C-alpha cells in the first residue's frame, strides 16, 4: 500500500502520534475532532479496566448495546462485558466504538476521577469524551419478552434498528468481503440477552412504541438490515414494507406522527417497488454501493454482482430520486475498502481517492446524498481472514473533505443543499454527517 507521496505504508509500523500530527499539519482546515473520529474508527478502541468496570456497575447510565468477550493482558480467561455503542466528543460528534487488537495501537478509553477520557496510551490524554444519557427504554422488557433496547438502539436524537441480522448473500458465500453481519449475529446469539436475528413486525411495533414514550427525545429512526436476494429481492421488499408499516403505525399510535420519519437502507428495487416503500410511509431511502470502481466492485460485493449487477444497482438507486425526491435518497461506500489489497482495491492512495471522489461526484450530480461508513476490518470478515490492513489516515481525511467540497459546490449551484439531515448528529461510523453540520 502506497501513501504520503508514494511511500510504502503499513499502519502498524507508523507511530500513531507522528502520523496524526503530520496529517493535521498538511490539512489545517480539517477540524481536530473530525480527524480524531477518523483515526479512532481506523485504529479502534481499547478500555482501561476502570472504565469497563464503571459500565458494568451502572449499566443503565450508558447505551450498552454491545457485549464483548474481553481478555485482560496477563489473565487466563476472557470475561463477558457490556460496552457502549459509541461516545461523543466535545462538539457532540458521535464516534463508534470498535474493539481492536493491540497491534493496531488502538486509542484508550480511561476513567479518571469519574470522567472519561480518550488517550493514546495510559495517562496520555487527548480529550474528554461523553456518553449518551440513560434512555428510558433501557432495561424495559416488552410484552413479547424481548428487551426494548435489543429492538431499538439509541443514540442522541435518533434510534437505530437492524430488523434482520442475517444477510442472504452469506448463504452462497457471496457476502460482501468487509461484512461481519452473520458472524456478529452468531456471536450475539451465543451471548443471549434477548438478541433476535429476525425481528417480526410485532417486535418492531412494540419496540418503537416503547421508545417513543420518551417524549421529545427522538426525531427519527434509522434502519438497515440484511438482504434477502431471492426472487429478485421481492421477499426483501415485502419484509421491508412490513417493517416500515410497523414503525409508522407505532409512530401514529404513540405520538400521532403520520408518517414518523424513517430512513431505511436496503437493496434498491425497480420503480414500482420504490413506490410501494413510499406508499408504506417511507420518506427517505438509501442503498450501499459499497465501492465505486467497476473492476473492484464484483470482487468486493460478489452477492450484489451475482444477484443484481452494478449497473442495475446504480440505476435503481438513482431512479429512486423520482419517487422520494431530491435529497431524500442516499447512497454510500464503505470508505477504506478502496485500499483493500488488489483485486479488491487500489495499491496507491491517489488512485483510491480519485475513484471514490468520482463516485461521489456522480451521486451528487444525480441529487443523491453521498454517505459512507468507515471500513472496519472486523473478525469474521473475509478481509480480516486475508490479513488486510487499514489505509492511511490521509485517505480518510481527504475523502471526507473532498465529499464536503463537492456538496458545497452543489449548494452553490442550486441554492439549496442535499444532506442526510436525519443523520445530523447521530452517525458514529462515518464523517459525512459531521461535515454536513457546516454545510
Amino acid at each position: 500500500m502506497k501513501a504520503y507521496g508514494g511511500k510504502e505504508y503499513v499502519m502498524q509500523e507508523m507511530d500513531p502520534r507522528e502520523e496524526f500530527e503530520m496529517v493535521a499539519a498538511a490539512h489545517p482546515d480539517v477540524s481536530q475532532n473530525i480527524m480524531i473520529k477518523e483515526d479512532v474508527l481506523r485504529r479502534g478502541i481499547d478500555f482501561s479496566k476502570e472504565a469497563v468496570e464503571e459500565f458494568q456497575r451502572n449499566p443503565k447510565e450508558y447505551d450498552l448495546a454491545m457485549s464483548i468477550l474481553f481478555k485482560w493482558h496477563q489473565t487466563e480467561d476472557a470475561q463477558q462485558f457490556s460496552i457502549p455503542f459509541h461516545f461523543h466528543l466535545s462538539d457532540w460528534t458521535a464516534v463508534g466504538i470498535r474493539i481492536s487488537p493491540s497491534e493496531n495501537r488502538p486509542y484508550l478509553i480511561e476513567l479518571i476521577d469519574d470522567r472519561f477520557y480518550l488517550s493514546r496510551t495510559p495517562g496520555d490524554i487527548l480529550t474528554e469524551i461523553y456518553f449518551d444519557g440513560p434512555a428510558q427504554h433501557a432495561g424495559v422488557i416488552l410484552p413479547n419478552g424481548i428487551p426494548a433496547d435489543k429492538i431499538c438502539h439509541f443514540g442522541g436524537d435518533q434510534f437505530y434498528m437492524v430488523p434482520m441480522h442475517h444477510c442472504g448473500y452469506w448463504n452462497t458465500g457471496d457476502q460482501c468481503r468487509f461484512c461481519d453481519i452473520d458472524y456478529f449475529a452468531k456471536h450475539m446469539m451465543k451471548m443471549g440477552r434477548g438478541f433476535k436475528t429476525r425481528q417480526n413486525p410485532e417486535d418492531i411495533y412494540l419496540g418503537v412504541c416503547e421508545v417513543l414514550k420518551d417524549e421529545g427525545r427522538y426525531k427519527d429512526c434509522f434502519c438497515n438490515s440484511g438482504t434477502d436476494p431471492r426472487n429478485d429481492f421481492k421477499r426483501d421488499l415485502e419484509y421491508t414494507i412490513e417493517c416500515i408499516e410497523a414503525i409508522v403505525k407505532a409512530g401514529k399510535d404513540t405520538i400521532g406522527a403520520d408518517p414518523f420519519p424513517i430512513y431505511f437502507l436496503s437493496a434498491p428495487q425497480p420503480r414500482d417497488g420504490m413506490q410501494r416503500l413510499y406508499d408504506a410511509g417511507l420518506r427517505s431511502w438509501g442503498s450501499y454501493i459499497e465501492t465505486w470502481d467497476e473492476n473492484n466492485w464484483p470482487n468486493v460485493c460478489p452477492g450484489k454482482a451475482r444477484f443484481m449487477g452494478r449497473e442495475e444497482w446504480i440505476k435503481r438507486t438513482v431512479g429512486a430520486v423520482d419517487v422520494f425526491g431530491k435529497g431524500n435518497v442516499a447512497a454510500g461506500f464503505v470508505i477504506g475498502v478502496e485500499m483493500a489489497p488488489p483485486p479488491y482495491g487500489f495499491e496507491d492512495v491517489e488512485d483510491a481517492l480519485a475513484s471514490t471522489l468520482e463516485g461521489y461526484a456522480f451521486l451528487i450530480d444525480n441529487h443523491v446524498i453521498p454517505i459512507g461508513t468507515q471500513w472496519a476490518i472486523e473478525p469474521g470478515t473475509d478481509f480480516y481472514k486475508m490479513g488486510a490492513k487499514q489505509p492511511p489516515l490521509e485517505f480518510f481525511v481527504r475523502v471526507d473533505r473532498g465529499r464536503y467540497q463537492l456538496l458545497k459546490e452543489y449548494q452553490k449551484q442550486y441554492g439549496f443543499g442535499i444532506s442526510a439531515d436525519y443523520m445530523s448528529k447521530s452517525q458514529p461510523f462515518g464523517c459525512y454527517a459531521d461535515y454536513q453540520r457546516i454545510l
Partner: protein
Amino acid sequence: MIELPKEVVAAFDDPDTIKVLTTTDEVGNPHTVFKYSMVVREDGQLAFLELLERSRTYKNMLRNHWFKKKVAVSIFNPKTGLAYQIKGYPTRCIIEGDEWVKFRADLWEQMPDIEPAALWHIGPEEVLDESVAGRFEEEKRRILQLEFWNIHQRRSKYIKG
C-alpha cells in the same frame, strides 16, 4: 451598500428597540456592546456615537475600517418580536460638522459630562431577518427536508388530546 427594509428603518426610531454592535479585534475576537444612539441616516447608512477614546470598540471600528472587515449590528424589539441583523463596513469617522454637533447635543442631554470620541457611519451590505419564523422559512429553502426531519417543530399538530 444595500437599502434597509422599511420596518428596520422604523425600528431604529422606536425607543423600545435594543441595538447591539459587534466588532472584531486584530486577531478576530468579537466584542459586543449596546449602542442606543444608533440611527439610520437619510442616505441609508447607520450612524452611532462612540463615547470613549481608544475604547475596544473605537479601536476595532478603526481596524475594521482600515482592513475592510465587516461589523454586525443586531436589533431586537421585545414588544413586536422584530429581530434583524445588519452586516456592513465602517465607512466614515467624523468629529466635526452638523451631524456631529447634533449627536453630541443629544448625548449631552443625557450625559453632560461625557466627551464623545467619534461619530461612525456603517454602510449596510447584508440584512437578515433573525426572527425564528423568518429564519425557519429561510432554512427551509436551503435544506430541502428540514420540516419533515425536525418532527418536534410540528409537535403541536401531533400532541394528542
